């Protein structure tokens, strides 16, 4: 995800203040809207992303990158292995983000290799990408795009 929870909540509060509040004329509804803002601004610094999701992602990415590192010839394979070893212990979301950056680096390496030399590494990474995409999609809720578009 590209937005942190804090960024998202800041944006929700900005939208409520700038785009919704001016259009709400009824006193009770305005009061309720201010109550929502009050809740959100106090919630902002007390929530973090669900660790379990990031843990699963990090474990899957690590396994895929280890396999890719073994399959890739030098200097790429050792470089990947070093990058994996250097990931600092930290919150799961930060580790998952660091691993995503290494996956991107791995794809850059593969782009410079003939297909047959990168096939095993590519296959390892593909398995992770597919599984992670399914996990990401599985937590999404049905879209309200029609209502959002039509107002």
């Amino acid at each position, binding site marked *: 995800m590209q*937005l942190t929870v804090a960024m998202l909540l800041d944006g929700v509060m900005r939208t409520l203040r700038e785009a919704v509040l001016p259009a709400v004329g009824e006193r009770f509804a305005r009061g309720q809207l201010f109550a929502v803002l009050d809740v959100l601004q106090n919630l902002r610094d007390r929530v973090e992303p669900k660790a379990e999701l990031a843990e699963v992602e990090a474990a899957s990415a690590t396994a895929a990158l280890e396999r890719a590192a073994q399959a890739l010839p030098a200097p790429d394979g050792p470089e990947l292995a070093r990058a994996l070893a250097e990931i600092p212990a930290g919150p799961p979301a930060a580790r998952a983000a660091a691993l995503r950056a290494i996956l*991107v680096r791995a794809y850059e390496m593969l782009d410079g290799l003939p297909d047959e030399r990168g096939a095993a590494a590519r296959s390892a990474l593909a398995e992770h990408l597919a599984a992670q*995409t*399914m996990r990401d*999609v599985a937590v*999404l809720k049905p879209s309200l*795009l029609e209502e*959002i578009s*039509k107002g």
Partner: protein
Amino acid sequence: MDDATLRERLEEFLRGRLADAASVRVTGLERSTEGFSAETFTFDVDVARNGTVEKRAFVLKREPLAGLLEPYDLEPEFRVLHALSAHPLPSPPTPWLERDPAVLERSFYVMDRLPGDVPIPVAGPDGCGPFTEAERANLGVDVVDALAQLHTVDWRRLGLGFLGDPGPGRAAAARELERWEDRIRRSELPLDPALAEALGWLRGHLPATNDITLVHGDYRLGNFLVARNAAGARLSGILDWELVHLGDPLEDVAWCTSELWRGGTAFASGLMLPEEFVERWARATGREPDAARLHFYRVLAIVKMIAIMLTGLRAFRDGRTADLRMAIFDHQLPYLHLLLGMLRGWMGGA
């Protein structure tokens, strides 16, 4: 600027452009909620001349402060729409562009409002798409034929060379890929591995063509104006020309038939099976729909959509927009990664 001031200034602008009118009165000014890009207003105008009052309907598009296709420059699309105003294509006649910020704070252009409404690419409550079978039959043909017509526009004769002819070979594909990679870079957001994989493949598979046409760039369900009456549904307008350029016509075909715009159906832009769409377009234009080129542009279509979403997310992160619709893109990205996986073949490993 509040709507009352906007209306006053608009009336003043129109009095200057309709100099032969005794009076000009703007009514029914409304901001559209549907667009994600340029700000769109609809309004009617009573134009009094020689003792009679003519009613006209217009749409105004103004550069937004932030948006999905920033940085904005309305002039190229205005020049294309203006040049096409007398062409049989159902593009809205577009008489006026104003760049002076003293008028409405930002550049804008005004075009005629064509009849119809704009169905959007979402599944209906019963799981069906936005059109009935009978509507699809007429509209599908209209949409493909209009695209074929667009791709036969003599852009040199219409003076549209300013859009920049990419030239022969791989230049058209390279330029489009660079255009969207550049937007991704400018978002300064971390690259997702699924996107990195697709970008690497696209760089290594640029297709060549010597067939350069006018390309709408956003030709798809959601940008079609559809007029429904007792006789059925017909295409009454092609909207949103912000991405117009010169390039490979298969780019439009791939975009319009992309999984992005199926509206919960198996149909390209909710209208007809993708292979039927491509076949009809090929017959209408006399062109060969090269499978490898089409596949390249299908992958690029998803990358382009991701780039657009990242641009919106950047604007949201920076606090340059209070439009929460931009934030929604963050949780829509996994769907696009899924589409990339299907097109690139790596979803088979799931």
